[in-house]
């Protein structure tokens, strides 16, 4: 089994983690890949971080009860290493002066205090860092580099390092992939620093470990937020990027086996910017999807030790822009499966649970008895059992999150929808056990995936009804909800 450890640094890193976890659940990295996930951010309340944590949680819950060997969806396990805050356990207001104990530093060495005055402006000294590094890499690197003193002994790091070393001892070749923007604060300071420090920490097994990174160049733009004095400014992005790239090239480049620079000529615009906190929850972007897909790109094969990944067309992303063998195919299948589930199969299953006679239900739904028992005492699972109900709820929760995510990506194109046409739908998880009346039944998948044309003999795949009929035509090795969604994914 291939082991991949992904570390998302900062708000953009967290958004890339969201994409990575969805790709892993969709089977885009292959059936035999274990994904370890760690989130790094100084701003525990950051909206992007919270969204990523929710996605990881959804994937863990769904994976725990839907995982089966040799299937496509949820075949690869996800291990959550949790979240690490470079500021430590400080929960109250924290400034750079608090971290470096400014008063004590001046008392010990006045010259050091003056150097500190030179490097850090008075506003930066007093800025509250509990909402992140405010788009200032200088603040971030000063904080993140303090991990050197702890030797990766705090938080989730010991477990992560132990697992990587155990993989190497077992003869595996684990891959560590870091995500972060290079134009903001946390990512641009944390990514090169952590990559370098991890490389040094794993020096004994360095040859057996691949360290790669998806570095996101400025891909969005926003107005000045009105919430704080010290804020991230889009005008600084180019300057930050230049400095961070120079640092990567001169000092940190050797620590990475391959660095993927990811960007887009057209910047997405965020209407309601916020510098950290729960309000900083921006919609997902196609650039993050490309960054996440880079996890499956082989280092050194066609890319050397660095590559620039972007969309081939300035205005819209196409399926061919996604790196990695099979990424596009898996993602397309997952979109169609989740769409068919959300707008058809979920309510069908809930409806079947309300039927007293399951045989009566299967007379109008011939696929049903291929996966579920019509009466007690048969080998197939009972659709009304608690186990099946939990599987329905878990998959639905994940698929709602998946559809929200892919919808945001589809809308992130500057010209029009891209990859898939999922307009006019609001995806909300449903808690009840009865059919969700807010979901209108859909039958056609014809216009869902943009740029996918099926051969005439395969047109049946555009109809949910015909797909269900295909499922009804033969027996399946896997039954129950797991069998239903995986067999649908395979033929869709």
């Amino acid at each position: 089994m291939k082991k991949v450890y992904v570390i998302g640094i900062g708000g953009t890193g967290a958004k890339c983690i969201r994409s990575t976890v969805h790709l892993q659940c969709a089977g885009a990295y292959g059936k035999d890949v274990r994904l370890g996930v760690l989130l790094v951010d100084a701003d525990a309340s950051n909206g992007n971080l919270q969204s990523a944590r929710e996605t990881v949680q959804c994937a863990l819950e769904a994976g725990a009860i839907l995982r089966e060997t040799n299937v496509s969806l949820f075949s690869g396990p996800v291990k959550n290493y949790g979240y690490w805050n470079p500021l430590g356990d400080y929960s109250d207001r924290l400034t750079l002066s608090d971290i470096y104990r400014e008063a004590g530093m001046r008392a010990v060495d006045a010259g050091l205090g003056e150097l500190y005055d030179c490097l850090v402006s008075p506003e930066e000294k007093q800025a509250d860092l509990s909402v992140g590094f405010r788009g200032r890499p200088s603040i971030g690197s000063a904080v993140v580099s303090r991990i050197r003193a702890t030797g990766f002994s705090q938080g989730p790091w010991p477990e992560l390092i132990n697992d990587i070393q155990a993989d190497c001892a077992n003869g595996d070749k684990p891959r560590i992939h870091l995500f972060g923007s290079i134009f903001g604060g946390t990512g641009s300071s944390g990514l090169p620093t952590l990559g370098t420090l991890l490389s040094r920490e794993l020096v004994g097994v360095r040859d057996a470990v691949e360290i790669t990174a998806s570095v996101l160049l400025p891909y969005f733009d926003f107005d000045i937020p009105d919430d704080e004095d010290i804020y991230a400014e889009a005008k600084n992005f180019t300057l930050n990027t230049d400095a961070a790239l120079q640092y990567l090239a001169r000092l940190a480049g050797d620590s990475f086996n391959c660095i993927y620079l990811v960007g887009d000529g057209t910047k997405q615009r965020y209407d309601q910017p916020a510098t950290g906190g729960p309000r900083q929850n921006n919609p997902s972007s196609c650039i993050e999807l490309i960054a996440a897909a880079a996890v499956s790109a082989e280092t050194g094969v066609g890319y050397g030790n660095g590559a620039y990944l972007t969309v081939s067309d300035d205005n819209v992303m196409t399926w061919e822009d996604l790196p990695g063998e099979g990424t596009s195919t898996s993602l397309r299948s997952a979109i169609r499966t989740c769409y068919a589930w959300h707008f058809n199969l979920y309510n069908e299953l809930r409806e079947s649970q309300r039927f007293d006679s399951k045989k009566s239900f299967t007379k109008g739904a011939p696929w049903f008895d291929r996966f579920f028992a019509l009466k007690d005492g048969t080998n197939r699972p009972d659709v009304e059992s608690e186990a099946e109900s939990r599987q329905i709820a878990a998959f639905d929760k994940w698929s709602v999150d998946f559809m929200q995510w892919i919808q945001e990506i589809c809308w992130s194109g500057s010209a029009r929808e891209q990859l898939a046409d999922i307009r006019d739908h609001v995806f909300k998880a449903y808690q009840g056990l009865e059919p969700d009346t807010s979901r209108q039944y859909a039958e056609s998948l014809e216009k869902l995936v943009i740029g996918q044309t099926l051969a005439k003999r395969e047109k049946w795949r555009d109809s949910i009804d015909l797909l269900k009929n295909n499922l009804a035509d033969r027996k399946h090795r896997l039954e129950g909800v797991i069998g239903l969604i995986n067999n649908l994914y395979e033929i869709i």
Partner: protein
Amino acid sequence: MLVTSFMIANVLPVALQAPEQWAQQIYLPSASLSTVVYLGFLLAWIYYSFNKRCKNCLEAKQTLGLWLTLFGMSIFSNIVSLILFIQFTVVQATASQAAPGGTLVVNAPPYEFLVPLTLLNGLLLFWLPSCFLSQRTLRFIPPFSYELNTISEKR
């Protein structure tokens, strides 16, 4: 059709002066026409079930109404066809020593047998084939088609 015609002529105790001629000249043409109509309705149902796209189970089950309508119409057309042939055909008995030129026979139709035979025709020519020939999502819509299909195929 031929079997039921044979039964009327030779097996069933019908109160007809010339049962063989009656079966030949009234029942057989009527049954031939009815069979064509039954097959027409059956093909219409098969075509409909092949092309129908159902969003969900309830929508599929609603098509039972259409199936019952077609079934009813096919039986009704069988009855109409019988009535037309009974009303407008005069049975010509074959020549005999008593009547070398043949005779015209007026018969009271054997309704006590025609009604069940019509229903039997409906079952054999529409219901049974539709149980096995219905397509896709509507494959189990004809009554008892699920039970019949699961006899031949373990699902």
